[in-house]
């Protein structure tokens, strides 16, 4: 293999996060000479997955070199008296996103043929905290996610059911059937106002419906315009890949697995991979032999290479200004209980869910305030992320810093208390602040590429959405088009034949 320096690279991709790795997948049959580097010793960038030991190392790096990571304030918390845990029995992911069945990511993974290397599991139930009137003890209430659920529900009153059904029927209508212009006007209010004024949905159902939108803002701060299409997406996704569930997770570490599959695809296609080699500096390089403009990159492994294009993120490219980002508090918690009751099979013939969503509305912490909800994405050991008999809880609240962390912590404790196993406890926890673009926020659709020159493409910061954000596919496509130039044929984007020896139906 020729040295890196002697190859005239068409594209150098810096960083192996999900965006870069999907671009790698998109370029895996392009015939372009692609060099894919990462300053880290692992794949996945800000979507990586770690053993306990690696997570600890990651936390030190985040705190030590904040300019290189869209994360801050990472700390590992070990409760006293916790036994030594087998570090490599865990695959804890920075990217536990759930993927809606209707997400464009799934057909993309199928058309590009890499889905065979992934294993998907169902996210089954949405649970919401409901204080019981008697003693204030925690009750988790299963949010009805389909009309069948509503019928089967024995908590909602018949009258409420009727209003709820009316709402669900309304948003389930195909757009052509409704007077769309009138609808849009009515969406300029908060979701609770919308539900109450338009459908007379009683207040006690507002939070459950809001949870289906995965909105990270408080009810008053969540517009109907934002939430309604997302609730629609939730309902429309149910049943697409099987009965009783509408969203998926990728086994073995979520986005990290998808990143790795993208990188493998490019490696199979001839791309060259070098870890522990970040882009240290960029200089313009006028080639002597013609009009071929290339930039010269100095890598942190002391190699110097020339490339026509450089693609990365703000954290993988040198000299990039930090973009305006939102911040959320997140944590990854390993608990000593399987929390079995969170993962019931949700429909006859449906799969055993490996994921569940548990929502603690802000009002469950502080009635008077306007706190955002805490979301706990709970992954069972079926995900391969922890040993059996345990669970991994991915917590998120749109309130960075100590207060956000204490909200998540309190939510985790209440969840454990609500569980039948009385001695369930936290075994290990990683807490951090994540930077990115909030799906509710004003920055949400910051699009296209920025960069100091036409040779350098910079992906926007990662989405903080709890569900995979399809906009990422658009950004990857933009990058792919810029790389391919005139040769970009939309039909060919991520649309590949099986490679030789690929396993057909058997």
């Amino acid at each position: 293999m020729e040295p890196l320096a002697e190859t005239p690279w068409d594209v150098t991709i810096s960083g192996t996060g999900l965006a870069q790795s999907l671009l790698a997948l998109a370029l895996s049959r392009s015939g372009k000479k692609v060099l894919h580097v990462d300053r880290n010793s692992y794949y996945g960038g800000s979507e990586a997955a770690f053993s306990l030991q690696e997570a600890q190392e990651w936390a030190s790096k985040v705190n030590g070199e904040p300019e290189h990571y869209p994360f801050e304030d990472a700390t590992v918390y070990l409760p006293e008296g916790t036994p030594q845990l087998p570090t490599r029995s865990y695959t804890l992911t920075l990217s536990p996103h759930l993927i809606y069945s209707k997400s464009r990511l799934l057909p993309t993974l199928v058309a590009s043929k890499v889905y065979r290397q992934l294993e998907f599991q169902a996210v089954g139930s949405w649970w919401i905290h409901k204080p019981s009137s008697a003693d204030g003890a925690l009750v988790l209430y299963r949010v009805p996610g389909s009309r069948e659920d509503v019928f089967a529900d024995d908590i909602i009153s018949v009258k409420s059911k009727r209003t709820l059904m009316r709402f669900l029927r309304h948003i389930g209508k195909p757009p052509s059937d409704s007077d769309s212009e009138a609808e849009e006007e009515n969406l300029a209010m908060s979701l609770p106002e919308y539900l109450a004024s338009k459908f007379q949905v009683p207040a006690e159902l507002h939070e459950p419906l809001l949870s289906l939108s995965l909105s990270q803002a408080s009810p008053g701060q969540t517009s109907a315009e934002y939430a309604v299409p997302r609730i629609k997406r939730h309902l429309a996704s149910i049943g697409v890949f099987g009965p009783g569930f509408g969203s998926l997770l990728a086994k073995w570490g979520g986005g990290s697995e998808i990143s790795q599959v993208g990188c493998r695809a490019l490696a199979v296609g001839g791309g060259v991979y070098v870890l522990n080699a970040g882009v240290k500096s960029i200089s313009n390089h006028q080639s002597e032999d013609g009009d071929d403009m290339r930039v010269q990159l100095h890598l942190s492994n002391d190699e110097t290479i020339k490339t026509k294009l450089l693609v990365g993120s703000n954290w993988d490219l040198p000299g990039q200004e930090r973009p305006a980002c939102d911040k959320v508090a997140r944590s990854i918690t390993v608990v000593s209980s399987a929390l079995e009751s969170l993962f019931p099979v949700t429909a006859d013939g449906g799969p055993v869910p490996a994921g569940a969503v548990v929502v603690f509305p802000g009002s469950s912490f502080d009635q008077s305030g306007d706190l955002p909800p805490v979301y706990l994405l709970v992954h069972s050991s079926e995900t391969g992320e922890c040993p059996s008999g345990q669970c991994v809880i991915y917590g998120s609240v749109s309130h960075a810093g100590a207060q956000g962390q204490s909200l998540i912590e309190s939510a985790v404790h209440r969840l454990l208390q609500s569980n039948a196993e009385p001695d369930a406890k936290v075994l290990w926890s990683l807490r951090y602040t994540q930077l990115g673009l909030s799906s509710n926020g004003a920055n949400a659709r910051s699009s296209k590429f920025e960069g100091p020159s036409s040779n350098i493409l910079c992906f926007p910061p990662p989405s903080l959405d709890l569900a995979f954000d399809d906009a990422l596919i658009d950004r990857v496509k933009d990058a792919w088009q810029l790389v391919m130039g005139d040769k970009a044929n939309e039909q060919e984007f991520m649309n590949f034949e099986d490679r030789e020896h690929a396993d057909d139906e058997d």
Partner: protein
Amino acid sequence: MSEATSTNTPKPSSSVKLVLLGEAAVGKSSLVLRFVNNDFQENKEPTIGAAFLTQKCSLPTRTIKFEIWDTAGQERFASLAPMYYRNAQAALVVYDVTKPSSLTKAKHWVAELQRQASPGIVIALVGNKLDLTNDGNEASGEPQVDGEQQPPAATADEDDAAGEPQEEQDATPGDARKVSTREASSYADEEGLLFFETSAKTGVNVVEVFTAIANAIPESSLKSGRGAGAGTGQTTLGGGRPAEDSRVNLGDRSTATAKEGCAC
């Protein structure tokens, strides 16, 4: 793709991710080619990039579907390995019996796997190019029959009664062997590895390697994968369920149910 729906198969079927590691040109890709296609290419070009292949291995009680990741071609950077061995349930670490440095490299890989890979990963050490030795020449006339009837040449961890069929094989004219069976096999013993000498060219022992790996994968790891065996009792969630129960098949996009939730 569809274990869940595959036809009339009473035997449970499990996927096993297997990675191939080893120095360049020891014959990693050739071993896989022999296993998957029962084929061999003389003077095979180095693999460009990497490769992914699958092959089934039928055991008396179950079918193992190997998903084989070949890291070939990029050994120089050693950068593909981390993404390959994560979650791998088995690894085939290959060296060339005519090249001592390749065994040294193989030992590095074994150490790396023991440090970084999943706990409980099944590692097989494989000395390839047996056809270039005198032992291999004897065997080279045999046709490759697929099946379990050929006794393995040497398996480190099965029963020691088998001993080492190829004892002293040094310095016979025409024998290119530079790594003795004894040296590699005692190393494999120490490290608890399966051990075979193979020839991808003649097919000797190739199927046996994969069959031995398939047999060595613990039942528990087939059920719940990587976390198994590392933690607590098996009575809780996941303990009794076959892995496929939680699997969602993207090929199953069902149009019939896609409208659930819509208006009546």
